[in-house]
């Protein structure tokens, strides 16, 4: 998995690429901890180029959400591929994560 970090105002955008699984999820977990250490509280994860996620990857998303909430932060997801949406639903994640179709809409979701 590749991970590119961008900024849009006070929003940290993480553009993810590839697989989010047992081999790669640690990279994302470490990155989220770095962001929190720097005091940033608005995180957007862009899934446009994520083609695979398993329960290890989903677990890291929940951990990130819990950490951000604890620090009065917010985590928003966007651009999840259609074929992966059902897994987010079955996992109960559509109830607890704000999920947007585009990155632009997601950035506005922090307002």
């Amino acid at each position, binding site marked *: 998995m590749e991970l590119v970090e961008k900024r849009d105002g006070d929003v940290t955008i993480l553009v993810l690429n590839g697989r989010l699984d047992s081999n790669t999820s640690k990279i994302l977990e470490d990155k989220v901890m770095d962001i929190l250490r720097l005091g940033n509280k608005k995180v957007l994860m862009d899934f446009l180029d994520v083609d695979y996620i398993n329960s290890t990857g989903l677990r890291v998303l*929940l*951990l990130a959400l*819990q950490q951000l909430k604890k620090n009065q932060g917010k985590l928003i997801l966007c651009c999840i591929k259609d074929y992966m949406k059902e897994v987010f639903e*079955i*996992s109960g994640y559509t109830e607890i994560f704000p999920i947007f179709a585009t990155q632009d809409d997601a950035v506005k979701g922090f307002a």
Partner: protein
Amino acid sequence: MDEVVVLRLSNHLPELDRLAEAVEAFGERHDFPRKMIYQIRLVLDELLTNVISYGFSDDKNHEIVVEIRLADSRLLFRIEDDAAPFDPLRADTPDLTSTVEDRAIGGLGIHLVRKLMDIVRYEHRDGKNRLFLEKIIS
């Protein structure tokens, strides 16, 4: 067109790449939709990751057999291993209604397996775990 593929994997996590490739190839040969290929990969990944990560307490090499069979619009899977007895159907279901703060980390993998497959059956026989999964292709 019916087809059977049998994979013999050793109990090492990098073997999951080989499994993923085989599932992708199988799905593409039969024109499965992207979503179905992904969900099959996911289910087998979750189950095999569990077996490889937690099933063995010795340092020996163990063989895990994965059979994928397409027959009469049904997809049938068989996973057989000599790991410690583990019935995924008896695993706790995570509470997916609790608040973010209280939501437990873990247990999600087996939950996904149960939800994404139409039939899951487990037996322990002759010292082996045998898991039979079935997905009806609509």
